[in-house]
C-alpha cells in the first residue's frame, strides 16, 4: 500500500507516456505522413480519382489509344511547364513563354517552308531565338531589376506580335518532314511527343537534383539575399533559368507545329497560364524555393485528362473552363494545408 502512494501524479504521467511511445503509430497516420512528403500529392490524387471516374463514365476512356492521345496532347504544355518550373523555383515568373513558343514556331515555319533553309539549321535557329528571348527576360529581371511579371507581361504581346509580323498574319500550312516526324512520328510505336517529353523531364530533373545550377536555383528561390551573401552569383543563375524557360518554349514549339502541321502567330495563345497551372498543380510554390519538376508533369496530365474526359463526354467548353479553374484552386489549397501540417508536425 505504501508503494502505491509514493507515485506522484507526475511520475504516473511519465510512466504512461513512456509506454505510449513504445507503441508504433497506426498505419493510417504513417501513410498520411509519408504522403505529405510527396510533392504534388494533390495532383496525383486528382489524377487517380479522375481516372476512376472517367473510366466509369465513358467506355472509351480506358483504351490504349485514348491514353496515348492524352500523353501526346499533354506534351506541349508539359514541356512549357518544365521550363516554367525552373523560373518559378527562383520566385520568378514567365508570362511570355507561350508567345515565345509562337515566335519560335513561326520562325522555324518561315525559314524551313518559305525560305527553304535546311531543316536542321532552321530548328537550330529557332531554338536560338527561343533562348535569346530567355536571355532578354533574364537580363532585364536580374541586371535591370525589373519585376519578372512586368517584363514577361510585356513579352506576352511583344513576341506574339513579332510572330504575326514574321508571317504577315498568314498561317503556314505543311511543315517539313523532320518537323512532322517530331510532331506525328513514332519510335517503336511510341509517339515522338511522348518520348521528347519524358527525355526532357529526365534531363531537367537530373539537372535540378544533381548539379550546382539545381541547388542554387532552390537557394535563390528560398532566400535570394542569403544566397547572394553566401557568394552565389544570383544574376547568372537567374538568367540561366530564363534561358531554360526560353529553350523549353523552343522545344515545345517544334512539337506543336509538328502536331498541327501548320504554324502561325496565334498558336498556343493563353498557354502560359496552362504552364503555370501545371507547375502549381504539381506542388511547386509560386513563392519559389520549393517544388520538383515531375510535379509539373502530373499537373499537365491532370489538366489534359480533364479536357479529354470532357471531349469524350461531350461536355461544353464552358463547363471545362469552370472545372479546370476549380481544380487549380482546390489543388493549391490542399497543397497549402499539406505544407502547413508538415511544418506543424516537424516544428521541434
Amino acid at each position, binding site marked *: 500500500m505504501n508503494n502505491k502512494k509514493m507515485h506522484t501524479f507526475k511520475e504516473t504521467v511519465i510512466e504512461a507516456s513512456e509506454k505510449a511511445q513504445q507503441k508504433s503509430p497506426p498505419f493510417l497516420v504513417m501513410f498520411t505522413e509519408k504522403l505529405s512528403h510527396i510533392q504534388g500529392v494533390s495532383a496525383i490524387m486528382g489524377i487517380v480519382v479522375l481516372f476512376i471516374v472517367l473510366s466509369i463514365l465513358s467506355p*472509351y476512356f480506358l483504351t490504349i*489509344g*485514348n491514353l496515348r492521345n492524352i500523353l501526346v496532347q499533354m506534351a506541349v504544355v508539359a514541356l512549357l511547364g518544365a521550363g516554367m518550373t525552373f523560373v518559378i523555383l527562383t520566385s520568378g515568373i514567365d508570362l511570355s513563354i507561350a508567345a515565345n513558343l509562337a515566335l519560335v514556331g513561326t520562325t522555324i515555319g518561315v525559314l524551313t517552308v518559305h525560305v527553304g533553309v535546311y531543316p536542321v539549321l532552321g530548328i537550330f535557329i529557332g531554338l536560338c531565338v527561343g533562348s535569346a528571348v530567355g536571355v532578354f527576360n533574364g537580363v532585364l529581371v536580374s541586371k535591370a531589376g525589373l519585376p519578372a511579371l512586368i517584363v514577361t507581361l510585356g513579352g506576352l504581346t511583344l513576341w506574339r506580335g513579332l510572330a504575326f509580323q514574321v508571317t504577315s498574319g498568314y*498561317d503556314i500550312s505543311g511543315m517539313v518532314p523532320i518537323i512532322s516526324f517530331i510532331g506525328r512520328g513514332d519510335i517503336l510505336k511510341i509517339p515522338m511527343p511522348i518520348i521528347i517529353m519524358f527525355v526532357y523531364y529526365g534531363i531537367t530533373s537530373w539537372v535540378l537534383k544533381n548539379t550546382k545550377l539545381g541547388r542554387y536555383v532552390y537557394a535563390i528561390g528560398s532566400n535570394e539575399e542569403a544566397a547572394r551573401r553566401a557568394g552565389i552569383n544570383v544574376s547568372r543563375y537567374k538568367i540561366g533559368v530564363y534561358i531554360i524557360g526560353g529553350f523549353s518554349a523552343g522545344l515545345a514549339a517544334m512539337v506543336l507545329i509538328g502536331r498541327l502541321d501548320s504554324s*502561325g502567330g496565334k498558336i498556343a*495563345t493563353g498557354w502560359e497560364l496552362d504552364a503555370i497551372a501545371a507547375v502549381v498543380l504539381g506542388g511547386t510554390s509560386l513563392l519559389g524555393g520549393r517544388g520538383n519538376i515531375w510535379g509539373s508533369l502530373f499537373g499537365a496530365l491532370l489538366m489534359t485528362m480533364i479536357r479529354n474526359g470532357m471531349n469524350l463526354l*461531350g461536355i461544353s467548353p464552358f463547363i471545362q473552363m469552370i472545372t479546370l479553374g476549380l481544380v487549380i484552386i482546390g489543388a493549391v489549397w490542399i497543397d497549402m494545408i499539406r505544407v502547413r501540417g508538415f511544418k506543424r508536425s516537424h516544428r521541434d
Partner: protein
Amino acid sequence: MKRILFCVSTCVMVLFVASIGFAEGSASKGAGKVIGYITKSASNQGWILINQGASDAAAGAGYALITLGPAQQGSLTGQLNAMEDMITRGVQAIAIAPVDSSGVAPAVTKAMKKGIPVIAVDTAVEGTKVTSFVATDNLAAAKVQGNWVADHVADNGEIILVNGLIAQSTGRDRRDGFLATIKKRKPNVKVYQVSTKWGQEEAQNGVEDLLQAHPKVSFVVCAWDGATMGAIAALKGKGYAPGKITIVGFDGAPNALQAMREGWVQADVAQMLYQEGYQGIKAAIKAAQGQKVPERIDTGNTLVTPDNIEKFIKDNKLDVFMSKK
C-alpha cells in the same frame, strides 16, 4: 512649396476633366471621309480576305479606312475600346465584326445614339439595332453543308461535327443549320460534337479523341476552316491517307482549298469572304452619306468541290493566296 504643388495639381485636374468634356462634345464633328472598321483580328486566312474586300471598297469610294483590331484574338474589351476610339475620332460610320454578339451591344448603342451608323459584318450584333447586317446567311450555308453530307453519307453512318463558339451567332447558326438538315434527311446518322472557342488546336484534340472513341466515323464536318486544318492534322497524326475520312469544310479559306487539291477535303461551303468585307464597307459608306441601306445583306455562299475548285479560285482571285507547292 506645398501650396504651389497643390495649385498646380488642381489646375491639371481641372484641365483634364475639362478636356474630357470637350472630347465628348466634339465627338461626331470629325471632318473628312473616314470609315472605322473593327475586325476580330486578322489571324486566320478567311479574315485576310474579308479585310482585303473592306479596304478595296473604301479605296474605291475615296474614303479613308481606319482598321482596328483587338490586340488579343477574341478580346471583347479590345473591341469595346476600339469602338470608343472610333466614336471619339468622329468617324462617319463604323463597320464591326463582333467578337461577342451581345457583348458589343452597349458600344454599338452608344455609337448609334451619336448618329454614327453601325454595320455588323460577318457576325450579328444582339440586343440592339444596327443599321445593317452584312454577312453570309450562316443558316442557309450550313444547310448546304448538311445537304451535301446527307447526299453522301450512309443511312447509319457516324459523323463528327466540330462547332465554333456557341456564344456567337455564327457558331450557333452553323451548328443549327447543319443539324436540322441532317436530322431531317438522315435521322439514323450519329453525330458526335466537339465544342470549341474557334481554336484550331481544340478542334484537332477533339477530332483525335472522338475518332479514337468512335472508329466507325466516316465524315468530319467543320464549322470553319481552322477546324478543317485541325481535322487534317488529326488524320495525318493517325497516319490516314487523304480521303479515307471525308472532310467537309466551311469558309473556303485558301489553305483548305489547297488541301482539297491534295485530296484531304471533299467539299467546302465557301463564304464570299471578300464580298463580306466589300459589301460591309460599301454599306457603311452609303449609310454615312445618308442613303438608305437594307437591314440584311446576304453575301451568299458557294459549294466548292474538286469539280469546280479551279473555277472558284480563279473567279474569286484567290490565286495569290494559294501556297506555292
